[in-house]
């Protein structure tokens, strides 16, 4: 109760979307520290990448914000409200597309709406428009098994946007795709989250990808999982792919690599 009041005060004062103070998560009765003492504020509409090797707590942090797991210690608030479970203003996308095989693309996108209530004509129109936005205008009534891996992730992205959440959590969403598809989808993701003005947290283990997409990169290290450093990325969004060859970009890559140390 006390923590929640505190968090609300923080949120109101800081004008930030997500606030974390001393946020920790341990598993197995404290045996494994998945995330240790995370402190941060995330501004509305910003894009944050979480980068680091396996076991650095990046997925744990995302799942804490999604309300899928409970924190062990500290404070965590979204929109100034204490996080106690999954909620409608926070949406999550996973590494696997996790589409329902028995539903067409449109019906998959409509799933979040069905959970919340009845589906209206406007909802269906919206779902179809989102599919067009992610480049699937010809596949509205295709089934998941008829779509490629990249297209399935596009459907999953449309479904995430259909939730109407303004905090989007993406857990290595394109990690299982080939390099070319991934790059293309990254560029589109940047455009789309810019269009819908969502606050985005993006988990990856690819340093260049993390920097290319984000305003801020949370560099995370394992044992115990923690945020070692927060690196600001000064480039305007959206950015062209070619930015990755600029000297400034490579300086940032070197900086992040340095923080990660021998681990990476």
């Amino acid at each position: 109760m006390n923590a929640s009041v505190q968090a609300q005060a923080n949120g109101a004062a800081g004008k930030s979307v997500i606030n974390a103070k001393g946020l920790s998560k341990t598993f197995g009765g404290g045996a494994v520290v998945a995330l240790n003492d995370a402190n941060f504020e995330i501004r509305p509409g910003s894009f944050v990448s979480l980068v680091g090797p396996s076991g650095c707590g990046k997925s744990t942090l995302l799942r804490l914000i999604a309300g899928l797991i409970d924190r062990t210690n500290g404070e965590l608030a979204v929109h100034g409200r204490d996080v106690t479970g999954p909620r409608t203003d926070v949406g999550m996308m996973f590494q696997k597309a996790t589409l329902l095989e028995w539903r067409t693309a449109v019906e998959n996108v409509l799933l979040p709406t069905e959970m919340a209530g009845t589906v209206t004509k406007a909802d269906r129109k919206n779902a179809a428009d989102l599919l067009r936005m992610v480049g699937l205008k010809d596949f509205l009534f295709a089934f998941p098994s008829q779509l490629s891996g990249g297209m399935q992730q596009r459907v999953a992205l449309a479904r995430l946007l259909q939730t109407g959440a303004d905090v989007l959590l993406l857990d290595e969403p394109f990690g299982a795709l080939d390099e070319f598809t991934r790059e293309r989808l990254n560029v589109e993701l940047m455009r789309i989250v810019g269009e819908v003005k969502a606050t985005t947290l993006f988990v990856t283990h690819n340093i260049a990808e993390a920097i290319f997409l984000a305003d801020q990169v949370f560099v995370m290290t394992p044992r115990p999982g923690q945020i070692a450093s927060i690196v600001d990325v000064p480039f305007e969004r959206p950015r062209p792919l070619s930015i990755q060859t600029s000297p400034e970009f490579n300086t940032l890559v070197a900086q992040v690599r340095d923080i990660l140390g021998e681990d990476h």
Partner: protein
Amino acid sequence: MAAQDTMTEGLSARSGGLSLRQRRTLLHALIFFTLIGLWEAGARLGLLDPLFYPRPTSILNSFYLIYIKNGNVWFNLYATMSLVIAGWIGGSILGVGLGALVGFNAVVRRFLKPYVIVLEATPRIAVAPLLIAALGFGASSKIAIIVLVCFFAPFINTLSGVVNVNEDKLELFRSLRATKMQVLRKLVLPDAIPVIMAGERLALTAALSGALVAEFIQRDQGMGALILVYTRNLNMASSFACIFTLTILGFLIFKGMEWVDHHIAYWKNEAGMKRIGDRRRRQFGAQVGE
């Protein structure tokens, strides 16, 4: 070069312009009728004991007798099939219902598991005489035997289908704040349908065997009783006609279930996806601006 040309021409001329498929069918028919012919010849020449290997022509004649001249097969076929259907429906309801109940409830699952293992290890047909003793002769004990032999596949398949729900999908539903009922209706049940259908297919085949065993024991009516009567009278040709009738029946049941499966688990085949995809487009196409 020229020689080769004439050779290929010669080949295609000899195959009479038939497609590969037609030639295969022809070959199959040829082999089949050769075998039947050998059987017939062997029986006529006294190489095959007519008691065990009646001549194919006699079997054909028996088909004529039992289907048309006497027409006595129809009633028995009807008797057997109504048992099969009734027992199968009963076994399915019991199997799917119990499977879902046990699947959803971890406590029930833990306490029921040893009994399930014992039941699985017991040849269920062995219980048939006990069921007759308990329920008496007649349809009810026959149906009970069929229920018993065909209940297991739907039960186990429903159970595993319900228990083995994809973890990622469950997490997705959790992140969307789905209620228990929504998880059940929109995830668990549709996800389990293909494996439940596979169980139903096995159950229907088992139901046919169960019905025959029940009729062997009770000997009053049905295909099982008919086969018994013919065999006892050493009318092997008619027994064979009955057995082949059951072969055809089993095949039709299999095909029928395949058809039903294709329609219910439509997302498992291209034709089904096309059909439902087109239907959705007709339903919602206008609403989504297509």
